[in-house]
């Protein structure tokens, strides 16, 4: 399958008064056509900033300080804002966590959708409206013709997120970045959205980057996983092998923290300490202060290693080297 997006050594830094904040620091991964890539991390791990960097929405004081974002061979980090605008919302689209933030509250849904269609396609207003209606129908909104005339506040949370997804899908993007789109939704509604998204990747060959902190959602959805910690990808590989045989101690701890993986009533295998501030990261491996396996060697930065094909880990003492 062809590679839709390849991110190589991406660095996104924020120049704050407290110093340079390396939100994304040397991140590499790739997504193929029709593939779901799960970008997992806790708050402050840089997973969202990675998404924003790809679609070119990093605001000052942040900027892409290095690396390449290759979309079908074209480096998105280098192209002009004008070129980016012809891609954004067209070939590359994004869904955000809060659909109220992405929809304009004072405009009707049809206005917002027709505008999006006409931004990238030279079609009549009637044609744009038809396309919008079809997109709403595709994401499972009942009676889409009437719903086009509604305002965002007239939709429930789940429906609003569907509208946001429909807008993202208007131009059948090759790449869809989803930033925690189901976190604010209820379980039954989340399942509906996940079902739609799965269908999309399978039927249209859209490559998907699914950003989340929820390993359970990722387990059911993703083909590949990249785990981020303090701005770096610490481990990546295909979903099943990362979840079944995690190599990095952080991934291991994270999976142990999920209650359903543990026996009922038993203590959860917790990670001590808390996520570090990106402004005062310890030198070397950022996880070493919380890691049970850390040694003096971890004061150096661990290189990316590939112990088996398709897997990457950034650790001097990966789990299986000793026996997990």
């Amino acid at each position, binding site marked *: 399958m062809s590679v839709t997006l390849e991110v190589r050594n991406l660095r996104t830094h924020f120049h704050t008064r407290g110093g340079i904040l390396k939100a994304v620091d040397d991140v590499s991964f790739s997504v193929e056509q029709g593939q779901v890539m799960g970008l997992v991390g806790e708050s402050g791990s840089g997973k969202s900033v990675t998404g924003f960097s790809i679609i070119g929405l990093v605001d000052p004081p942040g900027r892409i300080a290095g690396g390449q974002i290759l979309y079908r061979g074209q480096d998105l980090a280098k192209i002009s804002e004008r070129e980016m605008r012809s891609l954004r919302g067209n070939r590359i689209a994004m869904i955000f966590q809060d659909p109220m933030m992405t929809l304009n509250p004072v405009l009707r849904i049809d206005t917002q959708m027709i505008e999006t269609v006409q931004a990238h396609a030279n079609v009549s207003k009637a044609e744009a409206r038809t396309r919008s209606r079809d997109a709403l129908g595709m994401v499972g909104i009942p009676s889409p013709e009437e719903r086009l005339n509604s305002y965002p506040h007239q939709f429930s949370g789940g429906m609003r997120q569907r509208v946001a997804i429909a807008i993202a899908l208007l131009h059948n993007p090759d790449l869809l970045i989803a930033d925690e789109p189901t976190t604010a939704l*209820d379980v*039954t509604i989340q399942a509906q959205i*996940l*079902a739609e998204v799965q269908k999309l990747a399978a039927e249209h060959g859209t490559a998907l980057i699914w950003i989340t902190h929820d390993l359970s959602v990722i387990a059911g959805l993703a*083909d590949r996983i990249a785990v981020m910690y303090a701005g770096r990808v610490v481990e990546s590989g295909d979903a099943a092998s990362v979840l079944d045989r995690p190599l990095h101690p952080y991934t291991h701890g994270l999976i142990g923290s999920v209650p359903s993986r543990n026996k009922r009533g038993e203590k959860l295998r917790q990670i001590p300490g*808390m996520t570090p501030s990106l402004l005062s990261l310890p030198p070397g491996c950022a996880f070493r202060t919380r890691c049970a396996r850390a040694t003096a060697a971890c004061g150096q930065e661990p290189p990316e290693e590939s112990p088996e094909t398709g897997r990457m880990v950034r650790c001097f003492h990966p789990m299986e080297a000793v026996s997990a």
Partner: protein
Amino acid sequence: MTEAPIIEMRGISKRFGPTYDAAARVTRALSRRFGNEPRNETVRAVDNVSLSVFRGEVVGLVGESGCGKSTLGRMVAGIMPPTEGQVFFKGKDITTLPTDQAKDAKLKVQMIFQDPYASLNPRLRVDEIVGEAPRVHGLIPNNDFDGYLDAQMRRAGLDPAFKRRYPHQFSGGQRQRIGIARALAVQPEFLVCDEAVAALDVSIQAQILNLFMDLRRELDLTYLFISHDLGVVEHLSDRVLIMYLGRIVESARAEDVFSRPNHPYTQALLSEVPRIDARKRHFTAIKGEIPSPIAPPSGCHFHPRCPHAMPRCAIEAPAFKEVAPGHGSACHLNDG
């Protein structure tokens, strides 16, 4: 069990509605006279719910947003009076107790809230947040305020050296620990945790869940654990209650709920929960939206979304019946 339950609620309802001023009452009466029934604006957040929690139990309360689980939790914690029904603390009706005993009973039930940012007063230091209530209620032995405070903070996993700090100087997980220390400082027997770990990162969530389990053993605590996260509830609870639109639809021991769910809503909920051990699965969606609690569907509230709905379900609300020892469910399918 012969011992009276630590908390028992009988036929509890909570309704929220607008209060009408004189003008609104007149217009509503007029429109009724002219044959237009004015719109019902009352929300039945909790509708005739009964539950009892025994000493040492962890009861999980599960439901989606708007089902009334937080309202129920607040009534259990005694910070919101029910519209109807009775609350018993250790077999005694709280409303008929003399004031000082009622106060004691209330102190014994404490609550931990979801948002560790909104539930701590940003202008108070940690020592005031944690220490104020026990000082007011005279619970501090020998006037050793600092010693008592340090013990409370250590028990919740906080360094007492931080007691002169303000909440904003702490991370989310530590703030939740402050909330826990505050609740425990008045020596409660019963904790109501309302989505107490929902706002935390996975690794921090595990730390707090472990703390809850340690405290349960150490202090012989009883919990009502409210959550939308079935994984968390399964891990912690002895007994689970499932709520849908103001009513409890199923109640059973945790193993029974997760292995033999009876109510179609519970079954749907369980099948849709993403689980870390389920790989690359096909998500199938339960149809429809959660209806508004202002205008819940007639009969069984779940019938418009239920795959097994019969004509009877739209007319008659199913009674809550025992389907197996200790396992109750409200569904017409159980009538054979």
